[in-house]
């Protein structure tokens, strides 16, 4: 009964505190909105490319190249005939033009600036397909000129490049991604409020009152932890539901499991806060330590931007962040229906939680008062 009393008091005051509410509810929602919209480019598969300017020199008399130029023009590639005074290769070298094409009787030579690799690649691809087509047509001309028309009856090929993604699985959009990572980050921030659960009582001197009352230390401790768990969980629940309803974030079809993983993280965060507050000597230190830990975890866990396939030492560092595990577990559950991904995340969080709780309990037993 005392435990429930303690917990209920904690929940009540948590939800009454404007700062907590802002931090736990408004802050993540705003952050989702800002990051989700501002960084949406990082998640689209299209890539805008400016017009490509190309110099060319045609020493043949064929009309074939002109035809290609006309068509390429429609795709935003502008061909310009080189004048006598200009040196095409030099112009490309200086980056004024994306490429320089020299067409002679021997063949086509293309010079591109390696600095503009995308433009160069496109140019190269288009040109090679043009050359292939030209070669074919010239072969046909040699063998059966009358069939030429027929061979190209497919119309004038305008799409010289057609890209097909080799990885067609569903990928999160920016809002989906940030809904996940910000939620998991804000859960970790729960450690901030839980770090003052016991220390706060000491600072406010109410610890003396609690100890003077017939309530056992263990009841106080359990009640406090329970209250913090419940209020943090409620905040997370609200954030998740809000992002789902208003931002249309994709939380997948297995909300139960998602919440389970998040709950494990809540437990970890609350225990972390309490544990650190017992380890630190002063009352201000825990906040600083937790702030640093959460910031680093958030950074390496990809809360601010996605870290693509880290390797080596960098991978090791990202693996140290609990958020990495939670985020990957959540992503796998939501996008790949991979339930087994939840297991490492749950394990890591719960083991960490038990560790910090043990530290707290041991030091609570040792000290006089709270």
């Amino acid at each position, binding site marked *: 009964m005392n435990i429930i009393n303690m917990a209920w008091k904690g929940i009540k*005051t948590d939800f*009454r505190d404007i700062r907590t509410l802002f931090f736990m509810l408004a802050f993540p929602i705003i952050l989702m909105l800002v990051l989700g919209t501002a960084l949406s480019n990082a998640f689209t598969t299209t890539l805008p490319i400016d017009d490509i300017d190309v110099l060319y020199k045609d020493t043949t008399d064929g009309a074939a190249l002109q035809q290609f130029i006309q068509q390429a023009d429609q795709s935003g590639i502008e061909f310009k005939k080189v004048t006598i005074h200009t040196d095409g290769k030099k112009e490309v070298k200086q980056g004024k033009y994306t490429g320089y094409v020299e067409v002679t009787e021997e063949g086509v030579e293309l010079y591109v600036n390696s600095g503009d690799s995308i433009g160069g690649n496109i140019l190269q691809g288009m040109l090679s397909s043009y050359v292939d087509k030209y070669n074919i047509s010239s072969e046909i001309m040699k063998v059966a000129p009358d069939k030429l028309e027929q061979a190209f009856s497919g119309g004038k090929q305008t799409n010289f490049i057609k890209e097909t993604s080799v990885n067609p699985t569903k990928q999160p959009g920016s809002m989906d991604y940030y809904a996940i990572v910000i939620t998991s980050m804000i859960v970790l921030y729960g450690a901030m409020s839980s770090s003052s659960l016991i220390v706060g009582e000491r600072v406010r001197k109410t610890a003396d009152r609690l100890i003077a009352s*017939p309530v056992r230390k263990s009841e106080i401790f359990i009640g406090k932890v329970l209250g913090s768990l419940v209020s943090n969980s409620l905040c997370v629940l609200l954030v998740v539901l809000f992002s789902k309803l208003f931002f249309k974030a994709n939380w997948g079809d297995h909300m139960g499991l998602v919440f389970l993983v998040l709950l494990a993280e809540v437990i970890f965060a609350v225990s972390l806060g309490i544990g650190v507050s017992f380890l630190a000597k002063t009352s201000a230190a825990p906040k600083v330590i937790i702030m640093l830990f959460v910031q680093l975890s958030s950074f390496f866990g990809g809360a601010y931007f996605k870290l693509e396939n880290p390797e080596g030492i960098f991978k090791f560092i990202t693996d140290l962040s609990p958020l990495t595990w939670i985020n990957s577990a959540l992503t796998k559950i939501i996008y790949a229906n991979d339930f087994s991904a939840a297991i490492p995340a749950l394990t890591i969080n719960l083991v960490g939680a038990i560790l910090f709780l043990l530290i707290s309990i041991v030091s609570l037993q040792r000290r006089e008062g709270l």
Partner: protein
Amino acid sequence: MNVLEIKNLTKKFGDFIAVDNMSLTVAEGEIFGFLGANGAGKSTTINMIAGLLRSNDGTISILGKNNAKQSRFAKMNIGMVPQDIAIYEDMTAYENVKFFAGLYGLRGAELNERVVEALEFVGLQDKHKSYPKSFSGGMKRRLNIACAIAHRPKLIIMDEPTVGIDPQSRNYILTSVRKLNEMGCTIIYTSHYMEEVEEICSKIAIIDHGKIIAEGTKEQLKSIITNTKDVWIEVKTTEKVNLAAIQDINGVEAVSVDENFIKINSDTGVNNLNKILEHFMNSHIEIRSLQEKAPNLETVFLTLTGRNLRDQ
């Protein structure tokens, strides 16, 4: 029955001995004052009684039951008013009292009744829905008391309950202490304000360096130093004064004349001021001023320890 019995209590913080082999009994119905300078060991003693600190040696019994063995019983019967204001700023006055009273197992209608009672007692019933943020120092102190009395403890421990508040709130608190005492509570009151202790306490222990150096009623304490007081009467002229007649008044030990002052040394146990004044009136001697120089607790403390109460 003795509400509190302390035997050979010792508390060390490292090398520092905060409480040194202290023994003490507080009988039911007393307002027992702990008088001592800052750091004399008052708060440490109180914190051990309330179960906030563990003692290194010695025993504490509340209502005859050992504190260490039956801590729940002890805690149920103690109301602790800590030195620092210990309330939650983010809960209303009512919620504060209710929360703390709830820790003592009170529930439902009874809880509500007791909370209202406690708030009324300290005069905060009108403010029960306000947050302590808006309270003055004195109101916070009163709320601090309300939080400790709602469960109707037999023994109320008040650790410097009047630090840093206005005289009005202070008087209010002193009156409440007396009222609580009349309602049957035994009270332990610590202060380094000698006047307060002298005013309300029925028994006083002077504590210094973790030891009780003197204990008793205020009269007993004062009589440690001397049994006499000095009455200085300033007169217009000393011609008509009959020293022998004054000397004959019951209780007068010595009389002397110093310029316009008649200095009378008299037994504190005898109320003879009326008779002395009567003598002056009957002899038609004009009195200009009168000073009574009786020893107070401050003098007792100063004489015994060689230091002032408020020395650091």
